[in-house]
């Protein structure tokens, strides 16, 4: 395979910038896509060349428009396409189309994407390679005897779920055999009442599970390694919010065991390039395969920080047929890294998206602190795109130091104009249970009493600032003064000037 000289980045925001930085370092020319929803976007400043998609009107969003992306790559004679995450990253048809058109798709083969993207096939692959899976009833339960039989096979505790249910309704956890008959009938009744369908199925219940995932790298020459784990237990409605590497829950022995399972899954699907195998880990160290993500992930920087490897660089090198020169024994997890996702969301209003314009942004960057951002001053946050704006990734020699460094960086990170998840991240990092590493996927729902961090007297300071602004506004109303900004952009200079003129 030829060496890649140019890459079309079929994505936007922080990941487009992230990919372009590595490409630049490798001397590869980058092409970006300009869309009509975001023609002045920040990521475009990082591209060597911009392909304009604004002129053709189409119902298909630009980054999902396979034909146009392929056509653009052909038109500009671009060697390779990097899909980033989301959009076309896990679309086997797109990967196939690239192959057909002799464009290098920076990612796994269409066949691997398809197999691992299909839950049933992925679980069969796992089962046939002795990777532990969450046992379940594989369909509805006939009667309580059937339920009893299944629970014996799966092992208590089990959870009964309504087949038509969702969102946590109609679920029953059964701890022991003497409860199964009663619980089964109750679950049926509940399901009937709530969803007009009494069908119930059963799964193994994992108490306080952790989300642990393994980063995989595989080349085209049968070399395959894992780069350790990431813990992503801090999540809300299956959306990850804070990730770290390594995890407090793993020792060398468990790491080797889970790493081997991750490699087995990748081998079973003939996997190439970078990928991530996700597991649930229970309190006694049992782990269960959930799924494999066939792309670079949002949280990949924490792995980069503790291993020292550039994952996007390896994606590109593997795609141009280079041999993986890292051996498993070379991989050492050094220190600790934590990533905070900075989303445009109103934490105080149930994490609803917050739209607006970034008026100002300030942050610190340094040896122990990385800020992967897709925004700058003047960027618009619109309903057309995902709410994730940036990622703050901090390093420390120990977990404790990483937490301290993250908190320092969070205090220095300021965004004016919109509401973000920064106060939420501060609340997590200050939480005693997070600090001690005692976390699970139910941390936010169960352990957090308050979802945002507040300092003493903040409410009074807010009240004072409102009163002062109103005071000044009222008194300047009499004078010939027009406040075009409706009092929103009060600078101290202006404030002092007005105070003096009163």
């Amino acid at each position, binding site marked *: 395979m030829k060496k890649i000289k140019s890459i079309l980045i079929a994505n936007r925001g922080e990941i487009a910038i992230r990919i372009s930085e590595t490409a630049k370092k490798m001397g590869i020319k980058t092409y970006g896509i300009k869309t009509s929803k975001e023609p002045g976007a920040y990521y475009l400043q990082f591209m060597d060349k911009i392909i304009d998609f604004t002129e053709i009107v189409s119902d298909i969003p630009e980054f999902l428009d396979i034909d146009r992306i392929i056509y653009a790559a052909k038109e500009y004679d671009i060697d390779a396409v990097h899909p980033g995450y989301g959009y076309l990253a896990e679309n086997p048809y797109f990967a196939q189309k690239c192959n057909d058109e002799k464009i290098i798709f920076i990612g796994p083969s269409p066949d691997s994407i398809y197999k691992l993207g299909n839950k049933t096939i992925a679980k069969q692959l796992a089962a046939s390679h002795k990777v532990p899976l969450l046992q379940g009833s594989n369909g509805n339960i006939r009667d309580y005897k059937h339920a009893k039989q299944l629970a014996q096979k799966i092992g208590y505790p089990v959870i009964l779920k309504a087949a038509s249910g969702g969102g946590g309704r109609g679920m029953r956890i059964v701890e022991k055999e003497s409860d199964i008959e009663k619980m089964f009938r109750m679950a049926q009744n509940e399901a009937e009442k709530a969803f007009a369908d009494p069908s119930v199925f059963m799964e193994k219940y994992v108490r306080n599970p952790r989300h642990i995932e393994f980063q995989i790298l595989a080349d085209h020459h049968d070399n395959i390694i894992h780069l350790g784990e990431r813990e992503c237990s801090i999540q809300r409605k299956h959306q990850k919010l804070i990730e770290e590497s390594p995890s407090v829950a793993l020792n060398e022995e468990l790491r080797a065991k889970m790493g081997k399972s991750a490699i087995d899954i990748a081998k079973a699907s003939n996997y190439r390039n970078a990928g991530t195998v996700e597991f649930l880990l229970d309190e006694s160290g049992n782990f269960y395969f959930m799924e494999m993500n066939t792309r670079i992930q949002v949280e990949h920087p924490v792995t980069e920080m503790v291993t020292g490897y550039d994952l996007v660089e390896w994606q590109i090198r593997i795609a141009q047929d280079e041999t993986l020169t890292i051996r498993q024994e070379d991989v050492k997890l050094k220190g600790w890294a934590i990533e905070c996702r900075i989303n445009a969301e109103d934490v105080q209003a149930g994490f609803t998206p917050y739209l607006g314009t970034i008026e100002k942004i300030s942050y610190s960057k340094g040896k122990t602190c990385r800020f992967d951002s897709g925004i700058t001053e003047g960027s618009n946050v619109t309903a057309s795109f995902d709410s994730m704006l940036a990622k703050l990734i901090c390093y420390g020699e120990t977990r404790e130091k990483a937490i301290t460094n993250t908190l320092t960086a969070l205090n220095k990170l300021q*965004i004016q*104009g919109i509401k973000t998840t920064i106060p939420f991240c501060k609340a997590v990092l200050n939480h005693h249970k997070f600090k001690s590493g005692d976390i699970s996927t139910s941390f936010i729902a169960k352990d957090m009493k308050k979802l945002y961090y507040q300092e003493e007297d903040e409410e009074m300071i807010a009240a004072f600032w409102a009163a002062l602004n109103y005071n000044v506004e009222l008194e300047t109303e009499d004078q010939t003064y027009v406040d075009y900004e409706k*009092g929103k952009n009060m600078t101290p200079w202006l404030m002092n000037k007005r105070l003096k003129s009163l």
Partner: protein
Amino acid sequence: MFSKSKKGKQKFIACTEKNKKFEFINPKELYIKRGKENIPIEIVSDKQGFVYIVWKKRKYQVEIIEKNQNQYEILVNGVSYSISVESPFSYKRRKYLAKNKEQSKVERIQAPMPGKIVEFLVEKDQVVKEGEPLLILEAMKMQNEIVSNIQGKINKINFNPEDTVMKDDILIEVER
């Protein structure tokens, strides 16, 4: 509205959403009273133009994120507070109005953000509990459940699935 009293003292009452009130006499003199002591306030900004209040050696980043007449939404270190600034007179009126509002029978459920309605989970005349999801609103590729904040009966549904709504549009009316 704010008539100056004999001594030229002007009282501002800043009320939070939960009707907690803070009183400030002549805020433009830049101090906050704590007990009997007047503790001075300083307003500073950095080279990028972020504004801070310095009080008791602590620095707070402040920002007005939304404003409508005397209603302010203030961010302090990224956390928002809804503050309405009143004079002693308008404060009395506000309290009176609030009392009447409680007797109002209809609760209007507004869109917290612009978006597209995916589906309604309730029908007209259906009885709902507090916290029960009423509809799903899609924005930023996320599906958001809009819940009822009171117990009552669905009085009116103002939109259809697939409709695009603006922020603060009244989506559903619930009768107490």
